[in-house]
C-alpha cells in the first residue's frame, strides 16, 4: 500500500501524483519506472518515475488518462492508497555530457521524457526539446519541460499552437540549424519510427524509450518483447531505452494493438459504471 500525498492537475487529462515509496525514492534513477496495480482485480501498468524526494520518501508520477487503469488512478485523491507499487524497474538512462541533446516527445511520451532531460541538463548538456501533439489541448507539461530545456519548440499537426507541422519537421529545423550530438525520442510508436528515421538520415545517435504492453515488469513473461537489431529483447529488463535506429517499430506498433478491442470494451464498461 502506497499513500498518495499530493495531487496536481496539469491539464484536462494529465495529472501528477506524489506517492510514498521510500525504497524506490532512494534507489531510482532517470529512466526507471514502476508498476502499479489498483485493487485486487486491477491490472498491472507501467509508469515512469518522473521525479523523487528521497528524504521525504516519495516519488512523482505523471499520468495521462487513456484507458481504465489510468482513469481509476487519476480519480484517486490525497490520502488514498495505491494497492501495489513495485520498482524501480528497467535500466537507468545512460547519462553523460555529450553537448547538444535534441529531445523529441509526442503526446504520451512527454512524461517519461521529463526525468531524462532533467538528468541530462544536470550533467551539463544543452537541451532542445520538441513538444509535439495533434492539437493544442494535447500539449502537456510545457512548463515542466521548459524548466530543464534551453529551448522548447512546440509543434501541432493542426497549427492550433506553436508551429504547424509534425514532430519530424521541428526536429529537422533544429538539425539543419545547429550541430546535434544526441537525440532522445519518446512518444507513440509511429512517431518514434519517423523520428528515428529522421535522425538516422543525419547520423545522430538516438535513444527511444519504448512503451510496450507489460505484465510483470521483471522479465518473467515476455509480453513486452520487441525486436532490436534482429534480436528479441524484453523492454522491462533490457530497456526501456534502446538504440532507436535498431528497433523494429512496425512490429512494436502491431503488438501494441493486441488488446485494442478489449481495451475499448473495458473502457466503455468503466464509463457506464
Amino acid at each position, binding site marked *: 500500500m502506497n499513500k498518495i500525498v499530493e495531487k496536481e492537475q496539469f491539464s484536462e487529462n494529465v495529472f501528477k501524483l506524489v506517492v510514498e515509496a521510500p525504497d524506490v525514492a532512494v534507489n531510482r534513477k532517470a529512466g526507471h519506472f514502476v508498476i502499479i496495480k489498483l485493487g485486487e*482485480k486491477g491490472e498491472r501498468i507501467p509508469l515512469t518515475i518522473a521525479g523523487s524526494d528521497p528524504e521525504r520518501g516519495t516519488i512523482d508520477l505523471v499520468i495521462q488518462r487513456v484507458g481504465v487503469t489510468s482513469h481509476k488512478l487519476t480519480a484517486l485523491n490525497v490520502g488514498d492508497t495505491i494497492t501495489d507499487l*513495485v520498482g*524501480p524497474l528497467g535500466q537507468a538512462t545512460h547519462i553523460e555530457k555529450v553537448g547538444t541533446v535534441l529531445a523529441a516527445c509526442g503526446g504520451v511520451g512527454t512524461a517519461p521524457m521529463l526525468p531524462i532531460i532533467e538528468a541530462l541538463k544536470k550533467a551539463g548538456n544543452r537541451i532542445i526539446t520538441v513538444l509535439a501533439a495533434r492539437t493544442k489541448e494535447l500539449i502537456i507539461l510545457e512548463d515542466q519541460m521548459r524548466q530543464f530545456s534551453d529551448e522548447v519548440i512546440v509543434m501541432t499537426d493542426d497549427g492550433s499552437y506553436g508551429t504547424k507541422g509534425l514532430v519530424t519537421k521541428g526536429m529537422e529545423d533544429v538539425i539543419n540549424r545547429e550541430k546535434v550530438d544526441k537525440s532522445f525520442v519518446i512518444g507513440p510508436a509511429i512517431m518514434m519510427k519517423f523520428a528515428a528515421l529522421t535522425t538516422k538520415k543525419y547520423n545522430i545517435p538516438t535513444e527511444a524509450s519504448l512503451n510496450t504492453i507489460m505484465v510483470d515488469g521483471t522479465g*518473467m513473461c515476455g509480453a513486452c518483447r520487441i525486436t532490436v537489431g534482429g534480436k528479441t529483447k524484453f523492454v522491462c529488463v533490457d530497456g526501456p531505452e534502446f538504440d532507436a535506429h535498431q528497433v523494429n517499430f512496425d512490429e512494436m506498433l502491431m*503488438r501494441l494493438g*493486441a488488446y485494442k478491442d*478489449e481495451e475499448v470494451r473495458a473502457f466503455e464498461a468503466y464509463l457506464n459504471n
Partner: protein
Amino acid sequence: MENITDYYKSERAQDWRTEIRKSVKVKERTSMERTKMPEQEPTVRNKNSLEVNLGLVEKIALKEAQRCIDCPDPTCVKGCPVSIYIPKFIKKIEIGDFLGAATVLKETNTLPAVCGRVCPQEKQCEAQCFYTIKLNQPPVAIGYLERFAADYERNSGKTAIPEVAKPNGIKVASIGSGPASLAWSADMVKMGYDVTVFEALHEIGGVLKYGIPEFRLPNSIVDFEIDNLEKMGVKFVKNFVVGKTATIDDLRAKGFKAFFVGSGAGLPRFMNIPGENSIGIFSSNEYLTRVNLMGAAKEDHDTPVIIGKNVAVIGGGNTAMDSVRTAKRLGAERAMIIYRRSREEMPARLEEVHHAIDEEIEFLNLNNPVSYIADDKGRVQKMLVQKMELGEPDASGRRRPIPIEGSEYEIEVDEVVVAVGVSPNPLIPATVAGLETTKWGTIVVNDDLQSSVEDIFAGGDIVRGGATVILAMGDGRKAAAAMDKYITEKIKK
C-alpha cells in the same frame, strides 16, 4: 545411513505398528486393487476451474492404506527426495489417526497438501514401491494418501502451529517466495530467527500461485500454509525486487546476516523462429500469469487475455499441460499439444497427461513448429509444422528427434502458447559481486547449498534450472540447517 535403518527398525517394532501389520494378511493386502481418485467428469471439468481431483473419502483412504505391507526395508522412502517416512504415515492412516499421519508427513515435508497434488509420484516414491518393483502391480497410492492426510488436517481446524524457539533477534532474508523459500522460512523461524521473505510480485507463493492453475492446486491451499507461516512470525514483503528496490548490500546494511536465494527459473524461453512475435503468441509464463495471477478470464478483472478458438501449446512438460488445459477451459474448440518427441518422452506428470487426454486435448507428438504466419493485423493465423522421427538417444538418454525433410504442413491457429522451458532469473547474479554462476546462469553452491559469497545460500530452480516443488522444498530445508550452522559458527560467537 545405519542409524536411519535402526530407526526404521525400532519404529516398525512398536506395538501399534506390529498390531496393525498383523491385523490383515499380506496376501489379502496385495490382492486389493489400487484406489481410483474420484474426479470431476472430464466434459464438465474442462469448462470450469475447480479442482479436477476430488480427494479420497476416509473409508477409501483406509482401504488404500491397507494395501501397504509396511516393508522392513521401505524402498518407497528412497524414491522420495525428502525421505518422508512413508510406511509410518500410511499405517497411521490405517489405524485412523489421520492427524498423526499429517504430523509424520510434516517431519520432513513442509507442504504435504501441495506435494500430494503436484509431485511426480510415478517417478519417485511410487516408482520404488514394493508393488511396482517386485509384484509388477500398481503401487500403493502414496500421493493420494499424502494429500488425504494433509487435507484432513487442514479441514479439521486442528492444524497445530509448530512451536517456535525463543527469538534470537538475528535477521535473515529470502529472495523469492516459492516453495524453496517457504520451506526455508519455516525452518528458520522455528529456530528463532527473525525471518523476512521478499517477493517481487504482488502475491506470495512463486510458481504455486502464478503458474500452477487452480484446477490442479487451489490457491486457498497455498494461502493456508502462508497464513500459518505468518502466525509463526515470518514476515512477507511483497512488491520488493531484491537487486532493484534494494540490493543485497542495502539489506546487509539494514542488519540482515544471511540470505537464501530462491528466485526460481522464471525467464521464459522462446524458439526464435519466424513470426514468433505475432499477436496471440505468448510464453506459458505470460499466459498462465494473466489467467492465474491476474484473473484475466474473469469478467470483473481488468487484465485482458486473448481467448483462442484454435490453440496450440508447444512443449511436453507440466507447464505445457497446464497451459493447454487452461485454454480448453477458457473455451478453445481445439486445444493441442505440439511436442517434438513421442508421448512416452513427455516430462509432464503422468496423471496430467491422462487428464488432458480425457479432457479432449489433442496430442500432436513428433511435430515441431517451424514458423508462424500472421494476418494483416499481425495476429497469428497459421503455423507451419514439421514432422519428426526418433533417432539415437541423446545426452538426456531420450531418443533424439530428427526433422523429416519435406514433411511441413500448416495448422490453423489463433493462439499459441510457447512452453519450451525457462531459464534462471539473472537479476541476483547480476547484482551481487563475486556470486559464481554456471554457463546456464544457475547459482553455483556447495553441498551445504552455500554460494561463493559466504552469507548467501541458494536452492530450488535458481540452482537446478526448472525442477520440481519437492526438490525446491528439500533445498530450502537443507539450506536452513546449513545457514543456522554458518550463523552459529560465524556470528553468534
